[in-house]
């Protein structure tokens, strides 16, 4: 068990990277606290798996160092790092029984038979495969195979971290929930550092204490699910988190007012130096009203159960608004924003409001 530190880490798959674009992973400094449950969230191809493989040692970073505690492990092979990793698609040893599969990592490390037997039994109980222990792994369903993979990842108690690379992709939706809850419970029980890669925000937000959002090879924000929702540090986070994502509107910002292209003005919750950028507002923090605010054109209303989603246009720019259940929307054609919930962005990065002296 150890804190994992990434120092000035960057990776390019090209031998001589020229510009920023040649890096699959742009330079980053990051500390994964011992025992944390992290989710690494981002669209496909954003460098999540690259980062994971660097931590586990399957890939050597082209720049920077990886530290476990105070030990520099950058040049150490995977085996020496004592890391467990579960892959996107089930990897099982077909010719072995389920029991042998689960025991394999322990046996390779020379643990004694009695310990292995007990530990395998324990893990089998967690993944719900006790009755299948003596079956051959070959011929099991993808679900079952992935459960074996998960089990193999968790079977070692002394690992520095357990890395999950979109492990629930092949699992049936109704089982996903259960397995995710089990992972969470395991985390509480054993306190392993867990890093969970996913492109599914629900998975990330329910699993992790801290969510790390990646975009185009860069870590754009790390924070609690609440941070990501309320104060996205980058427009990508605003867009990626939430359903639907944040609304962004071009604006000239000065003081506590944002001026939209059409000349309409929106009040802000803080004070800003003059800048030209965007304001971002969550659909949940916009509301339809009969008077005041700004005029909108309503295109469509979708009833998604607990609330209604209003697809509107504000001066030609699409705008999503969430209307709570029961609120009448007929005849309302103006929108108001909650000023304290508006974030301001310049060059896609969030600008914090100035402290008012």
């Amino acid at each position, binding site marked *: 068990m150890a804190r994992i530190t990434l120092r000035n880490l960057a990776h390019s798959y090209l031998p001589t990277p020229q510009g920023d674009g040649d890096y699959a992973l742009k330079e980053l400094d990051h500390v994964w606290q011992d025992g944390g449950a992290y989710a690494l969230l981002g669209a496909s191809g954003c460098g999540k798996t690259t980062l994971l*493989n660097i931590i*586990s*040692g*399957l890939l050597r970073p082209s720049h920077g160092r990886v530290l476990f505690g105070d030990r520099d492990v950058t040049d150490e*092979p*995977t*085996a020496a790092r004592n*890391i*467990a*990793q579960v*892959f*996107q*698609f089930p*990897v099982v*040893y*077909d*010719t*072995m029984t389920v029991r042998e599969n689960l025991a*394999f*990592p322990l046996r*390779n*490390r020379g643990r004694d038979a009695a310990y292995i037997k007990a530990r395998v039994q324990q893990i089998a109980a967690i993944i719900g*495969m006790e009755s*299948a222990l003596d*079956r*051959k792994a*070959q*011929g*099991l*369903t993808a*679900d*079952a195979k992935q459960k074996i*993979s998960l089990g*193999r990842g968790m079977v070692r108690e002394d690992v520095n971290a357990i890395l999950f690379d979109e492990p629930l992709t092949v699992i049936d939706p109704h089982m996903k929930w259960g397995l995710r809850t089990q992972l969470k419970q395991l985390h509480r029980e054993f306190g392993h550092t867990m890093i969970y890669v996913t492109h599914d925000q629900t998975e990330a937000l329910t699993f992790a204490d801290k969510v790390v959002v990646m975009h185009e090879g860069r870590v754009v924000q790390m924070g609690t699910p609440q941070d990501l929702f309320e104060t996205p540090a980058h427009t990508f986070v605003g867009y990626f988190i939430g359903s639907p994502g944040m609304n962004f509107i071009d604006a000239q910002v000065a003081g506590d007012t944002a001026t939209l292209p059409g000349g309409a003005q929106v009040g802000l919750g803080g004070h800003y130096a003059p800048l030209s950028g965007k304001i971002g507002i969550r659909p949940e923090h916009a509301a339809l009203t009969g008077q005041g605010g700004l005029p909108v054109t309503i295109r469509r209303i979708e009833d998604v159960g607990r609330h209604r989603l209003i697809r509107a246009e504000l001066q030609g720019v699409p705008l999503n608004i969430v209307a709570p259940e029961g609120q009448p929307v007929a005849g309302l054609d103006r929108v108001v924003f909650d000023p304290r919930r508006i974030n301001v962005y310049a060059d896609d990065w969030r600008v914090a409001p100035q402290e008012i002296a």
Partner: protein
Amino acid sequence: MDKTVNNKAWLLVLPVLAIVAFSAVLPLMTVVNYAFNDTFGNNEFFWAGLEWFDEMIHSDRLHAALGRQALFSAIILAIEVPLGIFVALNMPKKGFWASFCLVAMALPLLIPFNVVGTIWQIFGRVDIGLLGRTLSGLGLDYNYTNDPIDAWVTVIVMDVWHWTSLVALLCYAGLQSIPQAYYQAARIDQASRWAVFRYIELPKMKGVLLIAVLLRFMDSFMIYTEPFVVTGGGPGNATTFLSIDLVKMAVGQFDLGPAAAFSLMYFLVILLVSWVFYTVMTGMDRSQSDIPEGM
């Protein structure tokens, strides 16, 4: 279900049946005909019943040739299969050298059999052959024309040279289909090189290995051209394998009846052994996969 019963479509199979009949069934039936009859030419046949079979089954000559043949196949399988796997494991996985290796490996497979025989016939000659001359220059008493052991070694090395590529290429194809995640998982699990081979590579290669073993068994069991060109079956009968003996009997001595009976038994032996190989190797598979789904 009120489907119209219409079996006229079967007529469409007729052309295939006709072609197969002319190319395979009729020639085979001719052999069967010879096997059960005696003839003195002029297309006159006398019923011989099982006489030729009886003669052949008790023929020491056939037993000896069958023994040599089985030994030959066993030796070349024992060499080519492990060697082919070893070569495949060590071939580059991608890039220029991967293509280079593939082409270089395929070359021996493209050479006509009698040319392979001629190459080795000359290569091994003590007077002008590079191999033969070098070996005798080194003081080794090597001469495949009058030493049975040397003749065997030459024929086996020639077959290994000619056919190991096939096993290697098949295994290489099997290895290439293994997803990278398996190797990564093995590194995470701290598996030894041997464990990676035993639990990942070998199981994934099993399908192609079955094909490789079957092909190499059948081909080696029917081998004719190469040893015929190199040793002519000699010295004495030392390298007279079944095919060579069969041709001697049928074409050399014109014993068509016994040769036909011999052919049929030869055919059945190959069929039987291939079936055994197939059943054993797929049987290993089945005992693992007949576990009911739904875990």
